[in-house]
């Protein structure tokens, strides 16, 4: 992988790596043996990486989830799947490039994939709208998912959005209804559905393609009802408390697995998927194949009942005379 832009908390690692590189250069140019010193720094680096990357705070994970060099939906489509045939358009208003989708192969399985796609640079973000889909995106996604049902193909949705787009046209074309309709219809699709949060699982915009028989998350992805900044602005009246909000919201994959909201956390390479796209994509592939095998063996009526109950059980409450 090419060098990535370091995040604030990675700077001690970067400094040490720089020291090590300098030492290597000097060692190459001189006759003095620096191997002891190099070994010392290498050990220190390993230790430091372990300390930092194994104890990531929820807010640090949010930053990794938003890293501009993180693998995006189409990167996973390239490295996890084969033979992508992209399909376009919602058949009514237009094509939404923030929500690509199409046929794809996963080992022996033929699959329909849909998901949010962010842009890597300003130019691509103009097309991809920073991964924030309009109603057309959600309606295209449903069109493709219904087609999958017709041809008996399992569905994999790849979630990576800060949220559905808050814009005038999006409201005019009833983005809320587009999301709501997907929630209702996805509940009844008679093929297996696996939803994976790749990076950002931003609220209703994420959930709008997030109904499934399995909900998986990449290790550094987050999934939340509100952005940490939005929560901080409401609760602490200041966005600078986003780190505290990120902890309070329990939005990390680890927390959501503990709460039994998601089924599995998919490991990322040390320091985050942006350090090694290929390994991240292979980890996803392995996990998807396993769950697909499990789901395909389930009778379809039972599958739908299980899907219904999966979402039915979410919620914490108490009442007199029960429980």
């Amino acid at each position, binding site marked *: 992988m090419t060098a990535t832009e370091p995040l604030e908390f990675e700077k001690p690692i970067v400094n040490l790596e720089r020291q090590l590189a300098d030492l290597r250069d000097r060692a190459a140019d001189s006759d003095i043996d620096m191997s002891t010193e190099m070994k010392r720094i290498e050990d220190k680096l390993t230790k430091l990486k372990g300390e930092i990357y194994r104890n990531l705070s929820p807010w640090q994970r949010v930053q990794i989830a938003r890293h501009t060099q993180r693998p995006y939906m189409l990167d996973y489509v390239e490295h996890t799947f084969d033979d992508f045939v992209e399909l376009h358009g919602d058949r009514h208003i237009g094509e939404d490039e923030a929500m690509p989708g199409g046929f794809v192969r996963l080992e022996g399985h033929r699959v329909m994939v849909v998901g949010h796609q962010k842009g890597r640079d300003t130019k691509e973000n103009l097309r991809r709208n920073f991964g924030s889909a309009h109603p057309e995106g959600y309606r295209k996604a449903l069109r493709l998912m219904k087609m999958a049902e017709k041809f008996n193909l399992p569905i994999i949705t790849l979630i990576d959005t800060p949220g*559905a*787009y*808050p*814009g*005038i046209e*999006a*409201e*005019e*074309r*009833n*983005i*809320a*209804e587009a*999301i*709501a*309709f997907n*929630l*209702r*219809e996805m*509940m*009844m699709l008679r093929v297996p559905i696996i939803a994976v949060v790749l990076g950002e699982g931003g*609220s*209703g915009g994420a*959930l*709008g393609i*997030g*109904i499934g028989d399995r909900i998986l998350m990449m290790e550094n992805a987050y*999934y*939340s*009802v*509100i952005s940490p900044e939005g*929560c901080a602005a*409401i*609760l602490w009246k200041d966005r600078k408390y986003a780190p505290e909000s990120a902890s*309070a*919201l*329990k*939005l990390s994959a680890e927390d*959501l697995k503990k*709460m039994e*909201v998601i089924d599995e956390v998919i490991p990322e390479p040390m320091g985050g998927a942006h350090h090694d796209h290929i390994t991240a994509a292979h980890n996803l592939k392995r996990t998807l194949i396993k769950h697909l095998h499990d789901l395909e063996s389930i009778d379809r009526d039972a599958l739908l009942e299980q899907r*219904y109950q999966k*979402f*039915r059980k*979410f*919620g*914490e*409450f*108490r*009442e*007199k*005379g029960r429980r």
Partner: protein
Amino acid sequence: MGIFKKRSIASLGKKKSDMPEGLWNKCPSCGAIIDEITLKQRHRVCTKCDHHFTLTAPDRISMLLDVDSFEELDPTLESTDALNFKGYTDKVKGYQKKTGLKDAVLTGRGAVLEHPVTIGVMDFRFIGASMGSAVGEKLTRAIEIATAEKRAVIIVCSSGGARMHEGILSLMQMAKTSGALARHHEAQLPYISILTHPTTGGVTASFATLGDINIAEPGCMIGFAGPRVIKETTHQNLPPDFQTAEFLLDHGLIDMIVPRSMMRERIGELLDYMLPVGKTA
């Protein structure tokens, strides 16, 4: 008016206004001063400008349902503090005390002009009628009962959206309620969503817009994203009637705008078409 001789559910919650009966109310829209008795007789609609004041859930239920038909479901169900979220337990307790409600929705069996329904009515006084586990669970149960007993579902929506303090569990209530509606829909039973001021966020993006019929009260605000967020994101000026009931009628989201005084009759008329003939409560 005056068909509700007996207010059988008056005990369900305290009055919206802190002012005792016989006092005066100021219309937030036109500034008219209206006495409490007149306002109540007019279902809290302004005598001058027809502004629809916010209704409490108990008032809404007595306005919509046949007299004495309401049978409340899950009256003790309340949210817990699943995330151990800063200040949430006290917040809930405070609103419970203030409103006399356990959470932001009342649900129950009932009848509208003799049609069997289950009804859910959100109460904006309770943390902006935000949806957490309690709201989601009560609505889901009400919908499931409707499916089992072949009843129509009526939900009177108003909400600031999903409740932040319960994190992802609040978001998942959108899926849960929509799932229950999927089964109700599959059973070919009618669902009428009544959108009232204001209906926003995750509630708009789930059950509120899934009605076979979506009805709005005049002038109410309905939207997904808040207008401030849209302005900040797009740097555009918003159209003057943006996100109003009238705007959304023009943009195809809702079937009709119905003034409060006509709501009950309209629902009855619609259910006459939608429920199997000969089924009465």
